[in-house]
C-alpha cells in the first residue's frame, strides 16, 4: 500500500453512442502530492475519476491506486481511498451524524469507534450544530461539507474530488479549500482534484494536467503552465471584418503567429508585459490605419489556456 496513483495508457469508450471519453491517458501522482485535472465539461475528468475509484472499468490501459490494480483488487482500492463525486452522495432522510456513523461502520469501525469518528469529523467540517438535523434540510454548502466528511471516514491515503466546489458560494468554497490544504499538508494525504476553474487548480495544486476531449494536452506546475501562455492577454475588437483581417496580418508579422488568435471576431494576443505592449500594439495599428473598436487587458483564464492549446493542436493559430 502506498499513496500513489499510476496510470498507463488509460482509455474508456462508452458503448452508448461509441463515445471515446478518455484517450490513452498516462500520468503519475506521487504520495503526498496535490494534483489537479483541469478541463472543461465533457473533457473526461469525471470518467477518469470513476475509473480510478472502481466505479467503472476502463476499456484499455492500466491503473494502480494505492498500489492496487483498480480492476483486479477493487475492494483493496476502496479501503484506502476517499471519494467525493460531482453529485453529493447523501441520503436526505438520515441525519449528518447517522450517515457518518453508518459510513464508519461499513468501513469496519465498531459502534463506539464510529461514534467518536463522527464527532471528530463533524467538528472538522463545522457541522456539529446541525449534526442531528436531517440532511434533506441542509443547504448545498452543508451537503458538500458533509460529503467531504464522509470521504474522510476511513482516513484515506488518497482523496479523489470531482469538482468539489462547483456551484458553491465563495465562503463555502474557501472552507473546502482550507480543509483540503490542511489534509494535504498535515496528514500528507495525496489529493486528486478535478476542476473547471483555473484559479482553483492554481491556488491548490502542486501540479496540473490539462485535459481536453479525453486527452492530456499539457502538464506542469501552475507556474510552468502560465509561463507557456504569457502573463497577460490583450483582446481587441474592430468595427469591420476588413479591419480585423488587416490587424491579424499586421500583428502576426510583428509578434509571430503563435501568439495571435482570432475567434468570434475578437483578436487575442498573449504577451509578457501587457501594459507596455498594449500601447505599442495600438500605436502600430494606428500607423497602419486600422480602426480599433475596443482594447481590453486581462490575465489568462482557463478559457484562454484552452483557446490557445486547442488552436495549437489544430496546427496554426487561427480559426477554431
Amino acid at each position: 500500500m502506498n499513496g500513489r496513483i499510476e496510470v498507463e495508457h488509460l482509455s474508456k469508450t462508452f458503448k452508448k453512442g461509441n463515445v471515446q471519453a478518455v484517450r490513452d491517458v498516462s500520468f503519475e501522482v506521487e504520495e503526498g502530492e496535490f494534483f489537479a485535472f483541469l478541463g472543461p465539461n465533457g473533457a473526461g475528468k469525471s470518467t477518469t475519476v470513476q475509473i480510478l475509484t472502481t466505479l467503472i472499468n476502463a476499456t484499455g490501459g492500466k491503473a494502480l491506486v494505492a498500489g492496487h490494480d483498480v480492476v483486479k483488487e477493487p475492494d483493496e482500492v476502496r479501503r484506502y481511498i476517499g471519494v467525493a463525486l460531482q453529485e453529493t452522495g447523501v441520503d436526505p432522510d438520515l441525519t449528518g451524524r447517522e450517515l457518518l456513523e453508518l459510513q464508519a461502520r461499513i468501513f469496519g469501525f465498531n459502534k463506539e469507534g464510529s461514534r467518536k469518528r463522527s464527532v471528530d469529523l463533524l467538528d472538522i467540517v463545522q457541522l456539529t450544530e446541525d449534526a442531528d438535523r436531517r440532511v434533506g434540510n441542509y443547504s448545498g454548502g452543508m451537503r458538500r461539507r458533509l460529503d467531504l466528511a464522509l470521504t474522510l471516514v476511513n482516513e484515506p491515503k488518497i482523496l479523489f474530488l470531482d469538482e468539489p466546489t462547483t456551484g458553491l458560494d465563495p465562503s463555502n468554497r474557501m472552507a473546502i479549500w482550507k480543509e483540503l490544504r490542511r489534509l494535504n499538508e498535515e496528514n500528507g494525504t495525496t489529493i486528486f482534484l478535478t476542476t473547471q476553474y483555473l484559479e482553483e487548480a492554481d491556488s491548490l495544486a502542486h501540479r496540473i494536467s490539462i485535459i481536453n476531449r479525453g486527452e492530456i494536452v499539457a502538464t506542469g506546475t501552475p507556474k510552468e503552465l502560465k509561463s507557456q501562455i504569457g502573463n497577460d492577454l490583450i483582446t481587441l475588437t474592430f468595427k469591420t471584418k476588413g479591419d480585423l483581417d488587416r490587424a491579424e496580418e499586421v500583428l502576426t508579422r510583428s509578434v509571430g503567429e503563435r501568439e495571435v488568435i482570432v475567434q468570434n471576431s475578437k483578436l487575442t494576443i498573449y504577451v509578457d508585459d501587457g501594459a507596455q505592449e498594449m500601447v505599442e500594439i495600438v500605436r502600430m495599428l494606428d500607423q497602419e490605419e486600422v480602426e480599433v473598436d475596443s482594447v481590453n487587458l486581462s490575465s489568462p483564464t482557463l478559457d484562454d489556456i484552452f483557446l490557445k492549446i486547442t488552436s495549437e493542436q489544430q496546427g496554426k493559430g487561427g480559426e477554431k
Partner: protein
Amino acid sequence: MGNSVWKDTWLITVRNIKTTIRNPFSFIPNLIISAFFLLVYEGGLSGIAQLPTFDGANYLAFILPVSIVSAAIGGAGGAGQGIVKDIENGFFSRLLLTPASRLAIVLGPIIAGMLQLFVQTILIICIGFLLGLKVETGFLGVLFVLFIAIGWGLAFAGYSAGVALRTKNAQASQSGTLIFFPLIFLSTTFVPYELIDAQWLKIAATINPTTYIFESMRTVLIDGWIFWDMMQGVIAIVVVCALTITFAAVSAKKAVARG
C-alpha cells in the same frame, strides 16, 4: 478492517428501515387502500356469500386475502422505489465506493421491504378480526397466511427491485407497478372460480399466479388444513420468486458492474 456480508446487510437494512419509517407516506396510502378494499368489499359484496357455491363461508374470510395481497404488492413496490431514490440522490454510488458487499447493497432494501410487509399484513389481519373474522385453522393458520403474504411480497420485491436497477428511473419503476392491476383483479378476486362468468377471465385467472395465492390463503381461512390446496400457493411463490429474484440479481449485477 472490513465486515462480513451479513454485517453489511444488517447495517444497510437498518438504514432502509429508518428511511421508511421517516417517510410514512411511502406506506400509509398503501395500507389505507388495503383496509379500504376490505371494508368496501365486505360491506358491499358480502351478500353473495349466500350463494350456494360459497357453501356458507364467511365472505370476510374470502375477501381478506385480496386485501393482504394488495398490501403485499404495493409494499414490495417500495423496495424498488427506495433503490431508485438512492440512485438518484447519489447514495447508491456512495455505497458502491465503500468496500461493502455488493450483495448487501441490493439485499438491504429488499429485506427492509419484507419487514414492512410483515407489519402491514399483521395490521390488516387485525382489522379483519375487528370486523369479525373467524379463521378455521386458528393461530397457526394466521401464521401460514403471513408466510404466504411475505413470500408473495418477496416475489414482487424482486420484480420491483429488478425494474428499478435496470431503469434507474423513478417514473419507469413507478409504471412497473402497473402490473398490480392485472395481478390482483384478473383472478378469483371477488367470487370463486366457478362463479366467474367470462371465459377470458377464467383463462386469465388460471394463468395468474395470484389465483393460487388467494386459494391457498382461503383454504386455511375457510376450509381447514388441506395440504394440496395449501401447497399450490407455496409452489406459485417458489416459481415466481425464482424468476423475479433471478431478474433482480441479473439487473443488480449490471447496475453494480463497471462496464
